[in-house]
């Protein structure tokens, strides 16, 4: 009897959980597959309706394997990227031309390299996808780039930027990255903070993992080159919830500016606690855009006001493609992760169209990718010779608009930033 009760309760729990997922409905896998198959079905009747008009191009279905974290600490970002990808393909009805349909197959990396590898194998070898798209975690990017090279499957990285190596001199010809890498943000921010904003002493705070160290180092390098001095470097462990111990390690009176690289929950906690401990608003904060993502701004509230960020995307950018993008997102301000997914989808869709969905010659698709030249929501977009994106960088500041909503204001634009940028 008791066991029956157990079973009932458990089933209830699952049902609750499933029905509760309405919030991220758009991101759930079954929904996506439905959309995709619908697209196929819709495409089919049109063919039948006009069977004789011209020599019919054969119907082509392109399968894209999307690898992002759906569980674990990076789940929120993965969900955003997935949503961005869907947003773009929904806007073109999962179809390019009449005969070419797009099918997305999602898999969860859980931000774990081992799981990502296993899932990549499943997508490529079992689901037989034509190429891979996604990757949020930098630590997943390297082994996956290695796998893509071995399996000779194109991989388009949409977020992970902490690992310059995958688009470095020894990069695999199968790997492209639409997101920016460390060299495209911090060096500019460091230089900008010293030269343009005129601050001369800084404290550097970043999470204690390789991307954190890499970013802090990159910032420090150009900041000091431009005449600044870093008085302290503080690396709280990943997953720190209480930044009190770290904020207590420097005296705000000793520094002109605070450089901080945090994201997600860490960003919220850090910015709020900086304010609670009375460091801000007196002291200015500079950061990569992750610190003041559009999604986290409401949770930060007033604490984030005045923070200056260097970013590759902000919802307020004035481009026609961005207006479309914001419209598609029901007018809500998209964050950089949503944009990353959207942009990645846009880039691969162009390349798919270029080769007519024919993946028998993978090289043609890679060439098409390399030749990308499009007007993205974040401005002009292309790749350099090593598959790394070349795009604009924006200096933005958190402000409150007339309705009291927290948003960004663009202070400056640096165009055509490649991974080899120097002041």
């Amino acid at each position: 009897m008791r066991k029956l009760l157990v079973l009932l309760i458990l089933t209830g729990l699952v049902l609750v959980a499933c029905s509760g997922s309405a919030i991220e409905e758009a991101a759930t896998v079954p929904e996506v597959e439905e959309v995709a198959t619908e697209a196929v079905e819709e495409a089919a009747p049109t063919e039948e309706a006009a069977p004789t008009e011209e020599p019919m191009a054969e119907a082509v279905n392109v399968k894209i394997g999307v690898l992002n974290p759906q569980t674990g600490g990076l789940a929120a970002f993965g969900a955003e990227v997935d949503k961005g990808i869907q947003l773009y393909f929904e806007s073109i009805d999962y179809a390019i031309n009449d005969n070419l349909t797009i099918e997305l197959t999602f898999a969860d990396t859980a931000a774990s390299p081992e799981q990502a590898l296993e899932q990549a194998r499943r997508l490529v070898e079992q689901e037989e996808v034509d190429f891979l798209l996604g990757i949020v975690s930098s630590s997943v990017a390297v082994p996956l780039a290695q796998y893509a090279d071995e399996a000779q499957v194109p991989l388009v990285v949409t977020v992970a930027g902490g690992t310059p190596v995958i688009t470095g001199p020894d990069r695999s010809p199968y790997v492209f990255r639409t997101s920016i890498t460390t060299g495209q943000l911090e060096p500019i921010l460091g230089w900008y903070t010293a030269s343009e904003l005129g601050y001369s002493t800084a404290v550097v705070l970043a999470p204690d993992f390789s991307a954190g160290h890499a970013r802090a180092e990159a910032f420090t390098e150009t900041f000091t080159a431009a005449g600044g001095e870093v008085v302290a470097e503080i690396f709280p462990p990943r997953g720190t919830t209480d930044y009190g111990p770290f904020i207590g390690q420097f005296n705000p009176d000793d520094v002109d500016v605070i450089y901080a690289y945090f994201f997600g929950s860490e960003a919220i906690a850090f910015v709020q606690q900086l304010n609670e401990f009375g460091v801000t608003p007196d002291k200015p904060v500079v950061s990569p855009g992750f610190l003041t993502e559009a999604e986290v701004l409401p949770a930060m509230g007033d604490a984030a006001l005045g923070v200056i960020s260097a970013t590759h995307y902000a919802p307020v950018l004035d481009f026609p493609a961005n207006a479309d993008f914001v419209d598609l997102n029901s007018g809500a301000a998209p964050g950089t992760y949503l944009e990353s997914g959207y942009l990645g989808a846009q880039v691969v869709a162009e390349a798919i169209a270029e080769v007519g969905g024919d993946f028998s010659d993978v090289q043609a698709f890679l060439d098409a990718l390399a030749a990308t030249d499009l007007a993205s929501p974040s401005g002009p977009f292309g790749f350099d010779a090593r598959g790394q994106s070349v795009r604009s960088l924006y200096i933005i500041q958190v402000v409150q608009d007339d309705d009291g909503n927290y948003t960004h204001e663009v202070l400056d634009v640096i165009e055509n930033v490649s991974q080899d940028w120097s002041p």
Partner: protein
Amino acid sequence: MKRVLIVIAVGFLLAVLPFIVSGYWLGLITQAVILGGFAMGLDLLVGFARMPSIGHSTFFGLSGYGVALAVTRFDVAIWPAVGIGLLLSLIAALLFGPLAVRMRGLAFLTITLAFGQLTWGLTTRWSSFTNGENGIPGISRPSFLWDIETVVGYFYFTLLIAIAISIFIIIFAESPVGISLLGVRNSDTRMSALGYNIHSRRTIAFVVAAAVGAMYGILNVFYNKFIGPGSLSWQLSAQMLLSVVVGGPVSLWGPFLAGSGIVILKTMLIGTTQRWPMVLGLLYVVSVVFLPGGIASLLPKVRARFEKMFRGRVTE
């Protein structure tokens, strides 16, 4: 002898898999054999000696790191690097084991967790040497009697080693040392009164399970051609501990089945639903409510045989 023959027979059965299943499945099964075998070794510690370790991925990961670091940082040839990897795990086990075995139950669980977290912390923090949480890619497989670069080749390689380790485990489990582990599980004083050194017995269980884990850790690093801190995370340790419990402690084959089953199930579930952790958790709950004795208890006859390890055989 009978159980050794069963292992060999199962090995031969599995050996036909490459003719039946696709390359993808073969790869997945290779992974399953690796983690299943690890769980089987852990059964000696968790099931036999009843020492619930939640830090045994330490040895699985350390051997992998040993190989990867020896190859990438010190240009050691691959086979000697394998030796270095195994040695590294063994040293760690001999260091942690004698301290940890003084604890019982939850205290043992916590101290193994603490040791595991220390090692994990070291590998993630010492970025300049270990490459931090980005791990070490680009580890190539060694040369062997046959080409193990291919999926099929590596499957046979894994199978061969897994059979060898399993035979060792079974012989060990039935040996005087093996059954003495069944003794330390719940009667310290009695074992001591019979002339057994409890701490050394428990250390043996700890080290043997670690050694088995280390060997499968080597297979794992060559399978993925990559090693990251995930290989020595507490989550992996927990998965292995649960595999032993779900499989049915002391049965050896139960944990193997559960360990490999969970790998395959998890991979399949991830492909089916985003809610896979929930389904997996649900399976754990259902299995403990409806099968408190683990998978092994599903086959009462076999269970009787294995649980009462020697009963049937002594009179033969």
